[in-house]
Structure formats: C-alpha cells, structure tokens
C-alpha cells in the first residue's frame, strides 16, 4: 500500500465532505460562484482536482469524473451519457491476461496474483458499466423522458437513446468468445473471469438492450401519435375558424355505416323488485324497515302545499244546521221540565219512536247533561242504570239513564 497515495486520498475525501454544500451547488447550478466562498477553499479544491476552469475567464466547474460519480450514485435522470468503450476495455483485458499467463509460466506467483486482481477489477468494471448503461436507459424510458417538456424534445431524446442502444449493441459484437476462451486456455481462474463471467453479462446485456430497443421504438410511435393528435386538434380549430358553418356529412345515413358510428343505444334498465320471490324476503323486509323518510316526504309535501300563495277572500258566514239528535235531546229535557217527573231515556226513546241507535241516544243524553252550564245543571239530576262488567273489575256498563228535576 502506497502511504502517500493513501494519505492524499483521505485528504481528498475529507475535502469533499467538508465542502459538500459547495460541490452539490456546483452540481446543480453547473458552475461555482467564486464570490460566495473564500479563495483559499476554492484554491484547495482546484488543487485537489475537484473543480477546474475549462478556459480562463470562465467560471469554475466540477470535474467530469466527479460529476459522473454523483450522477451514477444519485441515479439522476439528467445523466444521459452512455460510456461504452468496450473495445478498449477488452484490449486491456487481453493484455493483462497475457501478463498473468507469462508470470505463471515463469513461476512468479506474487506477480501473477497482482495481475489477476487487476484483471478481475477490469472484468467487474466492464460488467458494471454495461449494467449501469442499461439501467440508465431504462430509467429514461420509465419516466418517458420526463426531464424535457415538449413532445418534440422527447422525440429527439428518444432518437438519441436509440442511437446509444445501437452503439452499445455494435460494441457488444466485439466480444469474441472463441478468442477469449483460447486466451484463457486451461487456467481455471482466467476461464471463470473471461468466459463464464463475461458470457453471462453479455447474454443479459444483449437481451436487455433488445428489450430497450423495442420499448424505445414503441415510445417513439406514441410520441408521434401524440404529435399527430395535437396537430389534429389544432387543425380542426383552424378549419372551424375558416369555415364556421362546416358540418361533417351524416355518415350514419350512408348505406354502409362506418363501424365507428355504429353504436347501439343502451337498453338495459334497472330491474324491479319481485316481492313474491322468497329468497329476497329478508332484504326486502330490511329495506321496508329502513323506510324512515316516508314521513319526511309527506311532511315536505304538506309544507309545499302551505307554501302555495294564500288567496284572500271575504269569509262566508257559516250556519251550522242543528243536529237532529241534539234537538231530540233538547225536547227530552223539556219534557222532563214540563212534566216535573223523572223520565228514563229509553222510555222517552220508545214513546217518541226515535230512529237513532239507542246507545248513541243514551250517550248524547249523558253528554247533554254534562254539557249544561253549571247554573242550569243544578236543576237537574241524572241517575244511571246498568251492571258491573262480569269479567273486568271496575267497569260499569250503563244500560239506561234517568233524568229528573232536583
């Protein structure tokens, strides 16, 4: 382990964490506002190769390597760069494999281990790069290029992504597994790295990429469709402005109605309840039990009636025709006064041959007696004849009454 490298690495990471706010601001804004920070800090970051000045008199920017690191770690959708220098990586792999084999054949085991670890690192880098690229493409597809607003921009973004997919696929054809397997020979470790590992990566990547390609083409079709629709809408508005009296021909009256306009009308209506259907008895009873609003509806109706305008008219005087029954009772009382004797109600009833129901007659006599003013009542007395109810105690059934003068 190189002590110096270790030390400067740690100091770099510390600087990053100490000035994380500055770095994130530079990441989002693109440039650093030097006036906001002390020159010392800025100089320190420039020395550490975190910030750089692309040209003199231009504002400071983040180093591309750091920006890529942030984009990848944050899975930022603005990251549109697909880095696929597979040919280069493959060439490195081949060279290192040769180094390893040479070291082994010269029995320099230490050296060979170092080469192998380098080789492993490179293989993993290659697989990781491919996986990241595919993931990037997918993330752009899944939000339908949400980072640009207009459909035209989306179409351009889509075309860019398609170009990148094609590039990636072209680069993947550079994997020649026959060469790689020859190179690996009978070294177990090499075989595992160069053939097994790379082959599985290759297979998944090509598979994913062809899916991505299909999806991109589908999306492009959709965007075009969107554009077509927008144009259709705008064109129609323009057309209506130029010819306000435009009416489409009545396609429904053609002999062959276009299928688009052949739409059947709705014929299903609500079914009615069948009160004789036994299985529904419970539900129907439940509904009936819940019929609370019926009173409210009725009272609403009544309120509505009173809301009708009130007609003001002169009142007609009302004359109440005296009831026959009442007159007969009056005559009965007069008879008692005239004769000065007590008289049973039913006797008078029979003697006068009255047509009322005898019970009503007796009831009316009792009523008339109790209805007399207090002064008049003092002149009369009433006696009741009847029996105690045979079943219910305390009930007295009147069968006749007798009225007389006191």
């Amino acid at each position, binding site marked *: 382990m190189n002590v110096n490298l270790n030390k400067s690495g740690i100091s770099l990471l510390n600087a990053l964490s100490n000035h994380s706010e500055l770095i994130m601001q530079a990441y989002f804004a693109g440039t650093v506002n030097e006036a906001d920070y002390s020159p010392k800090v800025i100089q320190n970051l420039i020395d550490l190769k975190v910030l750089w000045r692309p040209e003199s008199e231009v504002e400071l920017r983040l180093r591309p390597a750091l920006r890529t690191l942030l984009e990848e770690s944050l899975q930022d959708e603005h990251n549109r760069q697909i880095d696929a220098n597979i040919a280069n990586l493959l060439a490195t792999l081949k060279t290192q494999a040769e180094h390893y084999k040479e070291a082994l054949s010269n029995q320099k085991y230490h050296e060979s281990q170092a080469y192998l670890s380098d080789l492993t690192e490179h293989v993993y880098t290659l697989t990781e790069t491919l996986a990241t690229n595919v993931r990037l493409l997918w993330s752009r597809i899944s939000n339908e290029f949400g980072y640009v607003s207009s459909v035209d921009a989306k179409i351009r973004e889509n075309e860019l992504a398609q170009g990148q997919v094609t590039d990636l696929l072209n680069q993947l054809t550079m994997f020649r597994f026959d060469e790689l397997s020859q190179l690996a020979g009978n070294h177990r470790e090499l075989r595992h790295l160069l053939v097994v590992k790379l082959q599985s990566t290759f297979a998944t990547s090509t598979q994913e990429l062809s899916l991505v390609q299909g999806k991109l083409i589908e999306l492009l079709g959709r965007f075009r469709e969107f554009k077509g629709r927008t144009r259709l809408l705008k064109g*129609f508005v323009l057309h209506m402005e130029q010819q306000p009296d435009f009416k489409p021909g009545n396609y429904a009256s053609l002999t062959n109605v276009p299928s688009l306009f052949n739409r059947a009308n709705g014929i299903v209506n609500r079914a009615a309840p069948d009160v004789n259907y036994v299985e529904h008895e419970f539900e129907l009873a439940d509904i009936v039990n819940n019929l609370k609003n019926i009173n409210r509806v009725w009272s609403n109706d009544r309120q509505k009636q009173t809301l009708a305008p009130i007609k003001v008219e002169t009142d007609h005087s009302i004359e109440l025709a005296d009831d026959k029954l009442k007159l007969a009772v009056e005559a009965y009382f007069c008879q008692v006064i005239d004769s000065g004797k007590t008289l049973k109600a039913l006797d008078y009833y029979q003697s006068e041959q009255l047509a009322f129901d005898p019970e009503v007659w007796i009831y009316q006599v009792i009523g008339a007696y109790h209805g007399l003013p207090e002064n008049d009542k003092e002149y009369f007395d009433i006696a009741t004849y009847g029996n105690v109810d045979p079943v219910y105690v305390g009930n007295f059934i009147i069968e006749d009454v007798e009225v007389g003068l006191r």
Partner: protein
Amino acid sequence: MITEQGRVLELLLSGEFVCQTKDEDAFRYLQSSINRQEIEQHLSLLNRRLASAAEGEVYFAAYQHLADNERKVLNQQFQEVSAHLMPMVEWLLMVQEAMDNDMPLTQGTIIRLNQLQTVIEDTPAYAEQLAKISRYAMFGSKASELDAQLKLIFKRLVELGYLVRPNQDKQIYTATGKIDYLFDVLKFIDETENLSLSARAEDAISQTNLI
C-alpha cells in the same frame, strides 16, 4: 350474484364504452377472444355485436343489422357527436396547453382540477377560452365565475363518460377511452372530408416560426 360475463354484458348493453380506465376487470375480460365470442353470442340475440375502436382500447356494442329504428338512433347519436366535436376539441386543447406537458389527453391521463384551475386563473387567455367553452350548448353554463364554469364542465364530462372521478372526495379526474374514440372520429372526418387538418396545423406552426 351476477357473473363477470353478465356484468360485462350489462355494461355493453347500457351503451357504455368499456376501457381500462372505466372498468379494468371488464376490459380485461373482453381481451380474451374466447370471452369475446361468448359475449358476441349473447349480443347477437339483441341484434348487437361487439365493436372496438382506438386500436382495441375501447369496446362498445354496435348494431348487427340496421333497420329504420336503428338508423334513427344512429342519426341521433351522430348529431350528438358532431355537436360535441367543437367544444371537446377546444377543451382538449386548452387542458393540454394548461397542463404544460404538451401531451394530448388519452385514456388514463390524470387531470387534477385544482392544479388546472390555478393555471387557468393565472392566465387570462385560458380564462376567456374557458368561458367560451362553458357557453357551448354541450355544457350550457350561464355562470360568470370561473370556478363554477370549470366545475360544471367537469361534471358534464363525467356524465357524458369522457372522464371518470375515481374518488368522490377528491377533485382528480381520469380521461376514459371515450376521448380516444373522439380522436378516432376526428381522424375519420379528416380523412373522409379531405380536410388535411394536420397539414394545416403544420403550416400554421411553421408560419409562426417564420415570424
């Protein structure tokens, strides 16, 4: 209990457009060709058949044979559709522009009424456009407040089946397949009447670019 088949039949016979947004289960049921055949058999009893539009995104019931009565219905429907065209086109354009993502409405597009209202209130041109749209016979609003106009338009669109409101407590609407059907109708008119609407729009756009 009604079977899924019965439910789908009922939907179709009530004159509904069955799409994924309107009724996902029914739509999925209709996507299987065996189910479709069974439904067709039932429909043919009532002189109806299963039809689809918008590249299979919507299903509806169509007449099998057209006699006078059916033609009367179709005529009436066509009058309705063509009366809805202009207000709908203007509304679609306004929503698309106000929502600021340049995407035409299609089945499943979500419209947040509050968000739309804010944009329209802040932009006098949209507010004017909205007032114009709300006065079409299709909506028939007499209100002068923007809020009432917008609410009425959305209510009416839900009634007519162009939108659904999945949650009654929220002012969030989803476009249904009937909107895609409307686009099909527009396309059809464009082609049949040789209006070349797209070219016209393209010309207008390129002219504004020249200015």
